[in-house]
């Protein structure tokens, strides 16, 4: 999302999820993870920068409340694995931090804010390949806005948000933006 979109989103966007809703859907996703992983024994959460990392940290806190166990959480920067690198100027790299015990044989849950074309997740799967061999990989997203370009589906979805390609979805989180909200706005034609 470029600067233009962001300004636009802030001016005439309407919120579709507010702070308490976000907390509620994250609690639900945490319970779903525990249920599907039968206790979350070997779960490792990897957030995709920037906002996926904050969501992963919040999910880890909730999982710890539920299971009474420390859940390893890290971040996975996928910039170097993108398939559109040659279409834009290079981006500054974000942090990749893999928990100390690695991901071999673990259940890795990738966490991102918005699921759109699926290309970010494809890149994330490639990046994981270079780091280790998880037992299984699952995907948790706050918002699924549709328009997939690859056969990728999330395991845990906070909110399904059918959108048009003329709309933008902007997730704001307290850690980065000072407040929790998901905004749906119209994309300005340039």
């Amino acid at each position, binding site marked *: 999302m470029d600067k233009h979109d962001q300004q636009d989103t802030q001016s005439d966007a309407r919120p579709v999820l507010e702070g308490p809703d976000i907390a509620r859907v994250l609690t639900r996703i945490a319970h779903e993870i525990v249920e599907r992983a039968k206790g979350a024994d070997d779960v490792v959460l990897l957030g995709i920068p920037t906002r996926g990392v904050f969501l992963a940290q919040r999910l880890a806190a909730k999982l710890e409340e539920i299971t009474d166990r420390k859940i390893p959480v890290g971040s996975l*920067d996928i910039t*170097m*694995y993108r398939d559109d*690198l*040659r*279409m*834009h*100027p*290079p*981006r*500054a*790299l*974000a*942090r*990749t931090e893999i928990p100390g015990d690695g991901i071999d044989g673990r259940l890795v849950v990738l966490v991102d804010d918005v699921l759109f074309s699926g290309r970010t997740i494809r890149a994330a799967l*490639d990046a994981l390949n*270079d*780091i*280790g061999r998880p037992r299984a990989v699952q995907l948790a997203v706050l918002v699924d806005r549709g328009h997939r370009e690859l056969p990728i589906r999330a395991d845990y979805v906070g909110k399904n948000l059918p959108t048009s390609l003329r709309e933008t979805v902007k997730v704001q989180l307290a850690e980065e933006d000072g407040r929790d909200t998901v905004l749906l706005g119209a994309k300005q034609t340039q």
Partner: protein
Amino acid sequence: MQRHLISAADLTRDDAVLILDTAEEMARVADRPIKKLPTLRGRTIVNLFFEDSTRTRISFEAAEKRLSADVINFTAKGSSVSKGESLKDTAQTLEAMGVDAVVIRHGASGAPYRLATSGWIDAAVINAGDGTHQHPTQALLDAFTMRRRLIGRDAGLGQDLSGKRITIVGDVLHSRVARSNVDLLHTLGAEVTLVAPPTLVPVGVETWPCEVSYDLDSTLAKSDAVMMLRVQRERMNAAFFPTEREYSRRYGLDGDRMARMPEHAIVMHPGPMVRGMEITAEVADSDRCTVVEQVANGVSIRMAVLYLLLGGNEPAVSHTRIEEK
């Protein structure tokens, strides 16, 4: 659109910090079991070495291969260059092969600039050392090593070297490492002092953004880093100093001198070291000497430069000063 790295003087402070920060992330790749990224897949990079330099060439080659580029090594020895082919002809041959970047080392100062600006070739040009002029990736890896050691690996992110005092000792006259470092360290806010025998200080040094001293002992106590330069025997075609022993006594770094440096201060050397002359074995093997680290950091810096110049459809590093020329 310019997409070259010719001189450390072309980099702005923000560009230099971006390169150092990117290199910090690249260094993490080196800690992984699989040290490879698909970023430059399908790009062809030529290492065009008109002058021997195993160290720099394999460092670039490692960086290029870790980013999955296709690498062609070209050394002048035994090539058409030794049969009399000009730089222009070589460039046009590479252009015809569809090369994306050329890493060039040349004995003549200005050869990379000529290659980048003459219109012979569209590829990105990265200077890997030209004559006594510049060696920008060496300066970047030195700055990276200083930032890591003097500020810290994570604490250093986004930071420059403001307030750090760096002393560069030795053959400044013939040293492209010294020139590049003075330019870059000044851009990053550090105070640089050059220490050399008067015969090995270049004419016009007073226009450089640094201090000059002929006395090593008086600068040691206030240095955060002391960078020793190699005495380039191959360039000592005139009597620059009386004897090697005399040089070593006045400008060599030994254990006594190292003890007079502040506790946190580091000793650097671009390699290869001539032990016993500019540096004693005791200093070279101490924990404060960063020579081996500098080699490892060189790969990370070169990966960062290649990513920022070639990773997208236009370079992330701006080169306003080159464009003005």
